[in-house]
């Protein structure tokens, strides 16, 4: 078989069929996918959560993961942030002509491991190939379905003054890990993407019975973006303390090097939860017992003042506004 993906691989003929049957199907053996019908047909009871995402990360491979792992974790997390138990995913590929087959196999293996780890099934998919230059190597689109347990009602608009703001661990790793591989910015070090599926962590948190009001993963836009969204949706203010926010030293250093603010850098394996003040300690304790929440910390609270705004107390005691980051993070010199 050829070592590069050709246009013919996407056209539905023999080459397509071979690509899928030899490279994809063996990875995802499950009754729904194995039927190879145009659509997967199944029954589900309860309230459904449904999400879709496209992954266009460049480069495709980065320290700590790749586009395949990212696609699964990202989709699973979107479902988990509504309190849903993720069940099924679709995975659609748009491959640039000339993309190495070995790389594609490696990405699909990542999709498989991530799916197994999150206990979700890939039940339907699609493969297209476009002309050289029409896609950046590989794009992945996913959709995910999950079921939201009865009694779970989480929304970005539910934050109330007095609630505590909790982060599940250190911030800024994913964005920096990806940046470190970009042309013109290359640097090396111990920073790996934190890419991970958070559904089991969320399940643990929900099991405490604590009153969880808001839940979100701070991806693009970073922690600053997510907190601002909560503040705006809830019409409340959020106050955080700079010293309470966990950041790895290496991430601080890389941010200094490039001129970024860790609060603006993307995370792919962290969540922010806004929880009733009386339940904060018990939810925090449960989070810390999970592998993915070991460094969870309370970083602030929801307040009635400055509704819609996020304010941070700096180490010297003064306050400053934490705003939404604007557009793409660009390294700066001055």
């Amino acid at each position, binding site marked *: 078989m050829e070592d590069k993906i050709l246009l013919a691989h996407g056209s539905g003929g023999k080459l397509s069929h071979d690509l899928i049957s030899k490279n994809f199907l063996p990875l995802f053996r499950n009754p729904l996918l194995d039927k190879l019908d145009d659509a997967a047909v199944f029954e589900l009871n309860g309230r459904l959560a449904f999400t879709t995402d496209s992954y266009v990360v460049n480069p495709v491979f980065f320290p700590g993961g790749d586009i395949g792992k990212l696609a699964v974790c990202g989709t699973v997390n979107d479902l988990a942030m509504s309190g849903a138990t993720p069940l099924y995913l679709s995975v659609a590929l748009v491959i640039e002509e000339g993309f190495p087959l070995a790389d594609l196999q490696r990405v699909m293996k990542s999709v498989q491991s991530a799916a197994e780890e999150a206990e979700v099934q890939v039940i339907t998919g699609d493969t297209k190939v476009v002309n050289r230059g029409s896609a950046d190597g590989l794009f992945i689109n996913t959709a995910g379905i999950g079921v939201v347990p009865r009694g779970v009602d989480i929304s970005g608009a539910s934050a109330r003054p007095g609630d505590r703001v909790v982060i599940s661990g250190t911030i800024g790793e994913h964005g920096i890990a990806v940046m470190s591989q970009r042309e*013109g910015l290359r640097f090396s070090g111990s920073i790996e993407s934190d890419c991970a599926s958070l559904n089991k962590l969320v399940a643990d948190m929900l099991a405490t019975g604590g009153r969880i009001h808001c839940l979100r993963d701070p991806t693009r836009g970073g922690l600053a973006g997510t907190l601002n969204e909560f503040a705006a949706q809830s019409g409340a203010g959020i106050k955080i303390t700079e010293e309470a926010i966990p950041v790895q030293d290496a991430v601080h250093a890389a941010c200094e090097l490039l001129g970024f603010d860790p609060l603006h850098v993307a995370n792919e394996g962290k969540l922010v939860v806004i929880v009733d003040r009386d339940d904060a300690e018990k939810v925090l304790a449960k989070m810390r017992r999970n592998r993915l929440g070991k460094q969870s910390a309370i970083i602030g609270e929801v307040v009635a003042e400055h509704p819609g705004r996020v304010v941070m107390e700096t180490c010297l005691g003064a306050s*400053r506004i934490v705003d939404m980051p604007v557009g793409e993070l660009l*390294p700066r010199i*001055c």
Partner: protein
Amino acid sequence: MRFATEYRDAGLGKRLIERIHRRSTRPVRLMEFCGGHTATIVRYGLRQLVPPTIEMLSGPGCPVCVTASADLDKAIYLAQLPDVIITTFGDMLKVPGSYSSLQQAKAEGGDIRIVYSTQDALDIARNNPAKSVIFLGIGFETTAPTVAASVLEAVQEGIGNYYVLSLHKLCPPVIKALLDSGEVRLDGIICPGHVSAVIGSLPYHFIPADYGIACAISGFEPLDVLLGIDMLVTQIEKKQPEVVIAYRRGVNVEGNRRALEVMEQVFEPCAANWRGMGIIPESGLKLRQEYGGFAAERAFQIEIEPPREPEGCLCGDILRGVKTPLDCRLFRRECRPEHPVGPCMVSSEGSCSIYYLYGGSYGG
């Protein structure tokens, strides 16, 4: 991180602030010249924390903000030429020129690449021998030597497709022009720390000597800036203005002789166009005759439309310390980081951007 984290010590910081409160008895006006200092001041809320006797103004020390529209238009013109790769620091991408921006030129097909260093620009030149790689040289005396070094490296290696559009500017001349304009009454200046790491402290001596204004060359961590403020207060209270180096770990009196030599070997002073201040003689840098082959303006015929400044934009006044972003009627309305009207809203060291992101009317 060593030599950085220690200068963020909150305990020491709070006590230093208390000390400044004790010692500052009369109203004084200080200008932090440099955007990096403005960023530290606003990020740590230092304006809120210093006593009410101390008023702090931001100056024109943001090389992106002071780049004139006409110069940006030249860069955008070059970006649209065939077989040209523009390499630039990220700061410049979103700054509006008269009619467009580099970001827009990129969306329209211009090959514009963000680099962290001229070293990366040289790499791109090596890897793309059929293209002309033009580096947008912005920055003050901190950056100019690094660009000069890249030219020398290109000479040494025989890299024939590397060019520089020099928009570099110098600090002491613009400080002088600012003081000569008489628009702002100042008692002290927090002088740029890393420019001074290159040029040393001697070039600032005219400030206390001719204008009676105190100077403190400061570093960029909060304790560094507070130390600088404390030293200025001391000089002003004693009525003994001079130039002191607060940032002793980074700056010595003669500066970095080697960096100055490299800069002077490749560049020579020329008149420069400063946004908000017009043409200031001997305040910019251009490539010397011997290195003229690297000058983008010589290698390429640059044709631009008559430049224009955006209407209602107060960047000029803000850069001179005469107005603050809060005085601008476009601030937070038509002019926001996602659609900036002027450069002060784009550059992360621009007053407007800093006010918008970190302070504005909340706590100052």
